[in-house]
């Protein structure tokens, strides 16, 4: 049994972490319009309108030199340069030397889309390393890259602010420990240069002529796992700054997803075992290679204290996980677990969007891959009219596809097989592009809400000012008229109670 468990252990922990580029390959299949829209709106959300214009120019052209960006965006040179600096600092663009146009700036589309996951990176760091780690990760994400001492100082001062309110004494060493912990687990990596470097990069690139052979390193803003970034000779040496290692963060998010799924399917003990195995598996130096098997003993000692299981129970759990053919937890390739999770997510999406009958029919096609219409109707145990309507709606929404196979030469409809099938990649692409459009739409709406709110506020302030002056003039022109009180009351009543409440809040805001 122990041997067998050893085998299960090996099977379970031979895990290849998923990297963003492996997952985001789907991007090649998504319509560019949706992706670009999302990228542009994300830039607006994170860095404001000026950067949005620059990103929009880059997105339209694929890549553009500084000159073109200035021309197309109708922004000043300084504004464009600053925007590029910000984008470089956040590792959202790179540049290459072209023969004709000088240096071409290009968006790192997949990297920008990862900005959507910032809240999840922050949550992962909080879950794994605690509240201070959360603050550190938040600060790094806010700055793109930051010099260690600067970062620690900022965190300490933020902590002091929080502590002032709570009246508990600050412990500055905790910040260093949290930082070291994050670094040890490969969450934070070094990038040479810092902001100085970024500024000099843009300036140097700008100055260089296309004939210069001093090509800046293409890796300039791409962190290499665990290694220091290469620097080109002509860039002045600058203090080493820190950046979040998003690959590691993505792995963590993925691992958390597996653990959550196991917890839901079995129980918290199974989830804790899976968590331990994944943690033991993680190789901080080179996470992309297959790791060795872990011993039963190691798993047992690595389990959190509150999970108190005997060796035999642990063995039983491992056997359960190994034998799970539904989730593929016994499969050495972790991608198989993920493909299961992806399928379940799509099923859940269809069910929640269209209803349980749609979910049933979609699952039949997911299970059987490709099936004839009549067979699907029979298996679904639904009235055939309903089942057909569901199939065609799913087809129109591009969740499944249909193939017509005529049985006679004249292709009569009554003698034609309608074969419905599913290509997970296609369906994922449809869902992904809808997600990107939904994100972009939400950002657009958010901006609109903010703007209209601001306008409303301005109108309200105007109104109240106007009323004030009117009141004053009425009082100034008073000549013993008795109706004056009534006029003033009328003027006061023209501001509704809700408006006066809003005014109060606004005034408080201005006072601050």
């Amino acid at each position: 049994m122990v041997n067998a468990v050893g085998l299960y252990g090996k099977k379970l922990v031979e895990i290849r972490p998923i990297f963003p580029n492996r997952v985001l390959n789907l991007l090649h299949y998504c319509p560019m319009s949706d992706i670009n829209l999302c990228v542009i709106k994300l830039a607006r959300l994170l860095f404001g309108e000026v950067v949005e214009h620059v990103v929009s120019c880059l997105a339209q052209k694929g890549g553009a030199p500084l000159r073109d960006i200035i021309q197309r965006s109708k922004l000043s040179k300084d504004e464009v340069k600053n925007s590029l600096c910000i984008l470089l600092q956040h590792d959202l663009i790179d540049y290459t030397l072209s023969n004709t146009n000088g240096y071409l700036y290009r968006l790192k589309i997949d990297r920008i889309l990862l900005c959507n996951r910032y809240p999840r990176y922050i949550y992962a760091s909080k879950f794994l390393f605690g509240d201070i780690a959360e603050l550190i990760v938040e600060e790094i994400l806010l700055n793109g890259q930051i010099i260690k001492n600067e970062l620690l100082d900022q965190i300490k001062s933020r902590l002091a602010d929080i502590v002032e309110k709570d009246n508990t004494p600050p412990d500055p060493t905790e910040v260093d420990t949290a930082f070291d912990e994050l670094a040890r687990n490969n969450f934070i990596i070094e990038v040479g240069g810092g902001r100085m470097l970024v500024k000099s990069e843009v300036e140097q690139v700008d100055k260089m002529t296309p004939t210069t052979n001093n090509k800046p390193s293409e890796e300039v803003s791409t962190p290499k796992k665990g290694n220091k970034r290469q620097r080109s000779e002509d860039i002045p040496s600058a203090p080493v700054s820190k950046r979040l290692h998003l690959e590691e963060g993505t792995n963590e998010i993925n691992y958390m997803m597996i653990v959550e799924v196991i917890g839901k399917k079995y129980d918290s003990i199974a989830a804790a075992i899976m968590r331990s195995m994944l943690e033991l598996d993680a190789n901080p130096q080179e996470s992309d290679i297959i790791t060795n098997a872990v011993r039963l003993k190691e798993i047992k000692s690595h389990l959190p204290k509150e999970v108190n299981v005997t060796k035999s129970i642990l063995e039983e759990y491992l056997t359960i996980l190994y034998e799970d053919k539904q989730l593929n937890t016994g499969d050495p390739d972790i991608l198989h677990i993920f493909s299961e999770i992806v399928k379940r997510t799509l099923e859940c999406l269809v069910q929640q969007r269209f209803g349980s009958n749609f979910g049933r029919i979609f699952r039949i096609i997911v299970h059987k891959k490709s099936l004839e219409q009549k067979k699907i109707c029979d298996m679904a145990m639904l009235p055939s009219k309903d089942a057909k309507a569901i199939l065609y709606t799913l087809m129109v929404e591009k969740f499944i596809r249909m193939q017509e196979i005529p049985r006679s030469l004249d292709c009569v409809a009554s003698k034609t097989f309608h074969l419905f099938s599913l290509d997970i990649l296609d369906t994922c692409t449809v869902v992904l592009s809808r997600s990107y459009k939904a994100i972009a739409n939400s950002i657009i709406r958010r901006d609109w809400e903010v703007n209209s709110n601001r306008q409303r506020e301005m109108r309200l302030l105007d109104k109240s000012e106007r009323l004030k002056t009117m009141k004053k003039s009425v009082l100034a022109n008073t000549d013993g008229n008795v109706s004056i009180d009534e006029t003033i009351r009328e003027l006061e009543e023209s501001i509704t109670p809700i408006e006066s409440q809003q005014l109060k809040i606004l005034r408080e805001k201005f006072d601050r």
Partner: protein
Amino acid sequence: MNNIDSDFSLVDLEKKILTLCQSHPKGLTDSILQDEMPNVNVEQRVSALNRLLSAGNLDLFKSDSQLIYKLKDPDLVSKNAICENTQEKLVYQVIGDAGNKGIWSRDIRLKCNLQMTQLNKILRNLESKKLIKAVKSVTASKKKLYMLFNLDPDISVTGGAWYSDQDFESEFVEVLNQQCYRCLVQKVEESLNLCVNQPRISLNNSFASSEEVWKIITNLKISKVTLTVTDIETILNTLIYDGKAEMKIESDPDGQEFKLYRAVKPIIDASGLEKTPCGICPVIDQCYENGAISPATCIYMKEWLES
């Protein structure tokens, strides 16, 4: 009394002649009859034979100057007795060949080469004589299938337990689906309570075989029709496709496979996308910033933000 006796013996005699005919497929001659029934006088024999001939039960043939009595084909008996003409006989034959799967009137027309009006008349005639019947198929409710009156329609025509009068009993299926799920959930709860700290045993015990579920459902007596284990498996499969159950196949020591089912909870609660209005929006493809449909003016967004 004498009369009754003679009547009784006559009926007996007829029966005896018919059984003799069955044992002599080549036919009975007078001499055989005489040998087999020495006690019966000629008069009685002739009157019995005459009655059988007039009722159409026997056929009379002549061979080598002697008469031969043969049993008539029972189908032909009824057909000849009731079908009026050859066309009716032909239609009857074609419908009979189709068995309990039935045949569509268009196909009968093609096979018999008849006009539709003519065929309809014949079909009406045959139906009124209770020789054939029309049944509706579950696969095509407007299509009438014809089959011999005494046949029970095939399962492909009636749709089995899930159909009554060609209507799919979706409510019945739904009730069974829920009951089966309850059985499975109960099984999981029982196993969790029984096998504490024995995860594997508890997991294995939480599976219920289709037969077990079938027994419980049969005992509940919720179904008027008799359900088979396969019927219950069909329902249990719908639970798998609802994402509420999983199945594994195991074999007993004799190598016979059986299906085991277990209730499961969904592992993904919600994907997030469908919680936003754009995730379920029917007009997302026509929605653009500053367009006729635009996120800024979208009513779905408004409702969502206000809810």
